[in-house]
């Protein structure tokens, strides 16, 4: 009696390439970070032959990162517009009643606490990067993969909390800066340069406020989400957003401190 050795069609279709990362469980561990090109790639990686949504752990992460990239590109344009207006306002003046050209720009003195705030923000970028890296720590991811608890999240959580604290500290520092300026009677409407000081610090603070919201969501996700991919996405995207806001701040702060 010949045994059925021909697999059914659907079985035959799947050509799996066995390679060193493959632990034979039929699914790649979520720390596999090789390029998963899709769309016309056809590079023989069988993960690409699967429908969208099941092409391995990095697929969703890649999409979210890309989305974040475009969002930050748009955000960058927002700040570029503000900064261009800053330069236009700084360099233009007007003619007074006696036909004299007047440039009314008077720089706003930067409260020194901003230096401290900048340092805090930089530090928070370090802590969040540590959180991000621990989500991708190869060995811990594998442990989770085998069902041995949630070592990645356990290690990432303190760093996330540290980032939240540092981020809040930065915002508190900004509030102090605004208070200091207000006590010197420098308000939003006071002068041309104060418009920009407040506009830039306010809009950036709103971005950081949203960032802290994202950090809290990520922290919440660490405890509630069972899928490691989801947790990785949460932490990873928040971290990149946070880094970008840090970078934006460096530029904006340089602008306020040295280019008024």
């Amino acid at each position: 009696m010949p045994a059925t050795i021909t697999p059914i069609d659907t079985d035959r279709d799947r050509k799996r390439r066995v390679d060193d990362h493959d632990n034979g469980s039929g699914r790649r561990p979520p720390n596999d970070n090789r390029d998963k090109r899709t769309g016309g790639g056809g590079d023989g990686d069988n993960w690409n032959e699967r429908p969208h949504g099941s092409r391995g752990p990095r697929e969703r992460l890649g999409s979210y990162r890309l989305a974040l990239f475009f969002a930050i590109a748009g955000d960058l344009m927002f700040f570029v517009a503000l900064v261009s207006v800053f330069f236009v306002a700084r360099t233009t003046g007007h003619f007074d009643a006696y036909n004299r050209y007047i440039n009314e720009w008077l720089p706003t003195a930067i409260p020194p606490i901003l230096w401290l705030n900048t340092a805090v923000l930089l530090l928070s970028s370090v802590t969040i990067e540590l959180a991000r890296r621990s989500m991708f720590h190869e060995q811990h991811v594998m442990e989770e993969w085998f069902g041995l608890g949630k070592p990645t999240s356990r290690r990432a959580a303190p760093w996330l909390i540290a980032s939240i604290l540092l981020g809040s500290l930065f915002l508190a520092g900004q509030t102090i800066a605004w208070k200091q300026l207000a006590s010197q009677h420098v308000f939003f409407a006071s002068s041309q340069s104060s418009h920009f000081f407040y506009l830039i610090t306010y809009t950036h603070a709103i971005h950081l406020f949203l960032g802290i919201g994202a950090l809290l969501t990520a922290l919440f996700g660490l405890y509630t989400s069972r899928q490691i991919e989801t947790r990785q996405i949460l932490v990873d995207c928040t971290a990149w957003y946070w880094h970008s806001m840090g970078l934006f701040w460096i530029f904006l702060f340089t602008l306020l401190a040295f280019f008024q």
Partner: protein
Amino acid sequence: MTPTPRHQSSTTSPLPPNPYTLPPLFTTDHHTIGRLYLLLALFSVIIGTTLSLHMRLHLIWPGLNIERILPGSYLAIMTVHGTIMLFFVLTTAPQSGFGNLILPAQIGSRRMALPLVNAFSFWLTALSLLVLCSSAFTEAGSPLSGWTAYPPLSAVASAGPGQGLGMDLWLASIALFAIASTMSSINTLVTIIRLRCEGMTWDRLPLTVWGWFTAALLSILAFSVLLAALLLLFCDRHAGTSFFLPANDLVNGTLHTSGSGSPLLWLHLFWFFGHPEVYIAILPGMGLTSMLLANFARRRVFAYRTMIVTTLLIGFLGILVWGHHMFISGLSPYAISAFSVSTIAIGIPATAKVLSWLATIWRSRPQYTTAMLFSLGFVSLFITGGLTGPILAQPILDQYLHNTFFVVAHFHLIMAMAGVFALFAATYYWFPQITRSATCPGRLMSETLGRWHFATTLLGAYATFLPMHLTGLAGEPRHYAQLSGVPNAAGHLLADLLPLNRFITAAAIFLASAQLLFLVNLVRSLRHGQLAPTNPWQATTMEWRPALKNISPIHETNSRADVSDLKIVVYRSPCEYHSSLHPSSFTPQWEPEITLNTTDDDPE
């Protein structure tokens, strides 16, 4: 070893048997969201058209006092008309409406990349529309400052009725819209970049997808700048700044001494957004036109790769030409020359597009379906409207023409009418896609009614907008509420134009009434239209792929059977038609083997 199936949320929700049952409110299904966007655009276009008729009637008949019927003055109505048409019709319907309905299928994906973001941006758009409409019901009505919101009119609350609360609502509405559009563009870009199926290389993407792609890139750049500009304007109005207010400006009887800014700054920021915005509105239509002309002529798109390049080039140059809206605003002559050159340069890729459209259908024997007719209409309108572009791009000529109806004629032909024709072509062509559901095949619209609709609309469009060139050349200004009662020579001139203006108004009423044919056709075909075969137009692009089961929302199917059954693969470029004599002889993108469906040779 068997793979561990990953069941995250494999609850396949039972699909509604009737495709027209209301969807769950916050659905993330891209197909439903696309339909909701189209519904929103339809609602908006009806309002916008009504308002435009109101304006035309007011122009020739100021004594009629139709203000009693609709709230708001002439300028308020103009503002709402422009804003609704540009944002809520020509931006949402092609980019988000059809972008959701068709785009995923055309690239061989079953979903959009970010479903939640998608749903969120739709509801934000709806909210934005609501806020805009609510401005009409405030005490002083909608703002007067047009869709371009030039300061100081827009920056000073006492500048006129509607510039207070009405203007604030306008600002809020457009800010919401900018955020919503940015999010939906991010979704579009990620979908196109990440979710193309196997074999769908960049040069195999249909030109429609390239249109969506370029428009989405432009949206991300442009809407963010608009948002910044709106924020600054808001500060000017409420936070005591004066970015856009010059010193000693007399606005509506009040002298504003404290200003230190310049309205020119707003113009720069606004048009840096505004010009790309008009390309956001038209690029998907251009792509669709290329594909439809090719499909019904059974020809390849002439110079396919060049068309991809021109799409991107138009997008790129579109960022560099904003100054042509500011020729008479006091730009430096050097800047004016530069913008004039870049504007004329954009004529080159635009002309290349037109040549490709003409070459594609040249001496073919097209099937004149309604969709094809509307695409041909698009080409015709684009040429007619485009011819006046290089005229306006010359600063000297624009000095005279800028504030006249000549500009109104230009942008209504090239953007408004061409854009709407592309939307009609899309609706007739993709109606089966709009109406299909997981369980029912789609329906077709009536071709007979469609042809009548096309003929009357084309006639109405030209009859309405061609004479505007003449009144503009004769000096009829834009943004004037009435043409009679003006003293002196100017009054004489305008009085002479009154007969022609009466004709234009009559033509506009005719044009609007012709759309009733469309509405009737739409409503009738939704329920009683002929059931469409799987590939009614014998098209080659992926949205007509027969086995495309639209299981929505699709979740990760990981069991083996699903993998191979549902795998979508593309084998070739679009537009592989083998003979214009045998329309059924073609190889769609999903077909692995070329099948020649004809026995005799192509005589051409």
